[in-house]
């Protein structure tokens, strides 16, 4: 199952020209700076941006080719706009019902109660929309989009109109969507942190063109792409809870390259978590250190070393096949003799648990 899209859209001083194939599962982020065309691309996928010569197939559904064009209201999709865009003449419950009522009963896979529970909006149902906070509005908008039982969920920077506190209020709900629903999600964002938390697959856009596309862990650490050179450049690790240490109150998380030790998180054994290790928090040694306070040490093979300005280098390594980044001074890199193929030990000073 995949999503295939080909669009050429001419706008004033702007051309969107894309040809992509992305997996129709998990979360795919369309990522790029403002004005790169990611919203236009999402709107084209929704059928709201006309493009006469486009092609779009979502799974086994052909939505657009040279002769067919399925209008937006006949596409089984959910769409969340940048601003919640709730209908002001309907209360929260009627906003949710608006979509459900128009979906034939045989096609309803997400019940209204499920949507309400997933987004935690039960207490808001009888409110008027102008009585809601920004975060609440956006949660209602997401529930409303989910309630039409979409085959694909499209989100256009659903958090960008919110302040940090509201973002943190919604993020867990988005993460639970990711974990609990089978519905593929296409998510437009220009915030690296959101992408690192949510996305499984990343499509990089620049000036209306796709510059790269691939699995998130790969894309964040590819040294030929800008993300690995960001000041917050980081690698992601998908790990499973392997055990808890009651004596020191720790949790062990295993991934193919080794074991992370973090302060205790009350997850069941086998629970899958996403970890992030920032490049500046990683130091390298040639031998495994034993007299150190650092718990998270992994054997790694250097893949690539690239200068970062005059004084620093970014090192990309593989630990058990999983890419990892380290930001070092050029002097250290020279002293250690870092070059592709070199065996090293990567020490992670801090590990962030994303989900």
């Amino acid at each position: 199952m995949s999503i295939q899209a080909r669009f050429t859209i001419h706008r004033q001083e702007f051309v969107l020209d894309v040809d992509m194939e992305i997996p129709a599962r998990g979360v795919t982020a369309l990522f790029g700076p403002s004005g790169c065309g990611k919203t236009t691309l999402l709107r084209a996928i929704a059928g709201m941006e006309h493009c006469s010569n486009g092609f779009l197939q979502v799974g086994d559904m052909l939505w657009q080719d040279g002769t067919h064009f399925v209008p937006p209201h006949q596409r089984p999709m959910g769409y969340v706009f940048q601003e919640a865009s709730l209908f002001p003449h309907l209360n929260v419950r009627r906003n949710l019902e608006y979509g459900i009522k128009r979906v034939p009963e045989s096609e309803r896979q997400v019940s209204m109660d499920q949507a309400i529970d997933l987004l935690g909006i039960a207490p808001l149902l009888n409110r008027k929309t102008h009585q809601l906070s920004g975060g609440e509005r956006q949660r209602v908008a997401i529930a409303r989009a989910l309630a039409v039982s979409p085959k694909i969920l499209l989100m256009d920077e659903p958090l960008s109109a919110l302040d940090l506190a509201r973002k943190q209020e919604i993020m867990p709900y988005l993460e639970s969507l990711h974990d609990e629903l089978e519905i593929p999600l296409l998510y437009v964002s220009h915030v690296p942190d959101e992408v690192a938390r949510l996305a499984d697959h990343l499509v990089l856009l620049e000036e209306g063109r796709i510059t790269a596309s691939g699995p998130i862990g790969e894309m964040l650490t590819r040294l030929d792409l800008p993300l690995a050179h960001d000041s917050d450049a980081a690698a992601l690790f998908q790990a499973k809870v392997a055990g808890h240490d009651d004596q020191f109150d720790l949790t062990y998380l295993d991934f193919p390259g080794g074991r992370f030790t973090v302060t205790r998180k009350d997850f069941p054994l086998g629970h899958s978590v996403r970890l992030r290790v920032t490049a500046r928090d990683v130091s390298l040694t040639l031998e495994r250190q034993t007299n150190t306070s650092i718990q998270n040490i992994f054997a790694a093979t250097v893949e690539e070393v690239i200068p970062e300005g005059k004084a620093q280098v970014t090192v990309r390594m593989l630990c058990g096949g999983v890419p990892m980044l380290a930001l070092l001074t050029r002097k250290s890199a020279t002293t250690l003799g870092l070059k592709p193929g070199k065996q090293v030990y990567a020490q992670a000073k801090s590990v962030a648990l994303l989900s």
Partner: protein
Amino acid sequence: MLANSDITALIITLKLALLTTIILLVVGTPLAWWMARSRWRYKFLLEAVVALPLVLPPTVLGFYLLVALGPNGPLGSLMLALGGQPLAFTFAGLVMGSIFYSLPFVVQPLQQAFTSIGHRPMEVAATLRASPMDRFFTVAVPLARSGFLTAAVLGFAHTVGEFGVVLMIGGNIPGETQVLSIAIYDHVEALEYSQAHWLSGGLLLLCFTMLMGVYAINRRFSVTPA
């Protein structure tokens, strides 16, 4: 107080205004919607035509309508060919004249209301499976309700106050085409100031009450911006 002929004039006036308003809402709504949405480059031509009655002397409008509706005019001869009679100096002709005369008062508030809705709510409705017609009636119309109220009241009130067009194409036939504004004129001509007072005062009160109602209700209707 009111003479019988005055009451007849009042009834004709209200009937004319009501009929005109209903027809204008039916015809003006799709027109206003199209004008609010269309990106046609020559749209301004149509906008100018719709706005003409705002500035044109009613006698000019009335004169052309008279020519068109008369037995030798295009509309009049069409009516004759269809086995009817020319529309000039009939109530039907009056309705037709009023439709042109009050057109901008219905279309402009509707167009403004539709424009201010913006594209977003309609797009949202489309992503929630509503067909174009469905989203027009379930989203655009409710969101434009204050525009509909304004359009209806302005169209009605403006038709009630019509004088020049009626005089030109309706003549002044009591019981058929004599409306209030003309009855008032007749009373003044005949120096019957007391009757003129009654009718004028009544009309003033009616129009003021309707407009007051619109503004009061529109304030309550106003939707808090998202």
